[in-house]
């Protein structure tokens, strides 16, 4: 089987649902500090009360930490084992994450395609983590593009 043979029926199907325990204020502050952020808006719960959200919220890109419990469905992962790397991300941000929020990550494949360049074929898998809080509010859609050099011609695009 090659990348081109991955059934398109995987598209849009949830392959993982992961519920995270409630996030703490300390976790949110630690994320900001791990990026070198010292702005009180993101690191000081008391100072953040005067900010636009009326309290401490996660720095927006914290959502990339919530990758779910399974990277990819087995049928895709089998074809993405040759040193694939992260080619980029597209994130739509919605409700902020506040301390005490419990986030559920629902993962699905949203696109599979092949590109051919000077160095040969490249395979792309786009998977999405849809993140919702305990009230069912959409927090973010995080689309990640994983790229891998093709191991064979693969028979053309799957997209």
């Amino acid at each position, binding site marked *: 089987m090659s990348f081109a043979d991955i059934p398109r029926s995987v598209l849009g199907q949830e392959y993982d649902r992961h519920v995270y325990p409630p996030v703490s204020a300390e976790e949110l502050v*630690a*994320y900001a500090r*791990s*990026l*070198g*952020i010292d*702005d009180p808006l993101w690191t000081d719960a008391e100072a953040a009360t005067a900010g*636009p959200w009326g309290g401490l919220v996660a*720095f*927006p*890109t914290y959502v*990339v*930490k919530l*990758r779910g419990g399974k990277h990819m469905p087995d049928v895709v992962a089998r074809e993405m084992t040759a040193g694939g*790397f*992260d*080619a*980029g*991300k*597209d*994130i*739509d*941000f919605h409700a902020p994450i506040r301390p005490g929020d419990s986030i559920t990550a629902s993962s699905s494949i949203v696109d599979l395609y092949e590109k051919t360049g000077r160095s040969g074929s490249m395979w792309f898998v786009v998977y999405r983590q849809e993140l919702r809080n305990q009230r069912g509010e959409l927090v973010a859609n995080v689309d990640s593009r994983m790229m891998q050099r093709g191991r064979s011609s693969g028979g053309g695009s799957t997209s």
Partner: protein
Amino acid sequence: MSAPDFEALDVGDEMPPVEVEIGRELVSGHARFLGMPFPRFTDEEGARAEGLPGQIAPGNMSLAILARELLAWARGARLARLGTTFRGVVLAGSTALVQATVTGKDDVARTLECDLWMESGEGDRLVIGTATLAWP
């Protein structure tokens, strides 16, 4: 850096370029925090063993640094969307330049569209992207 408000910004305006240190310890600490303690992110020798020129920053860190600098500039705005493409490795221990340009403005929705990127000391654009900023 002063914080421009929505009314003061228009298409063609540029964020003042920001020089950022991609510190080795910051990279390894952030990678561990993200649950990605892989040698390429935490260890110079481990990265070379993977065929890389040295310890690199995770893509998830590079995009976060772009967001960090954009929001530090557009203070008061909310990041509504961020799209990034990782074109080259961001080496730990290097200095990069983060820049952004306003490419669109919607006065009704009170949003700005921006192009943004991170370039190496040699001028190579390592991470490119677009973002939407929203003001209340």
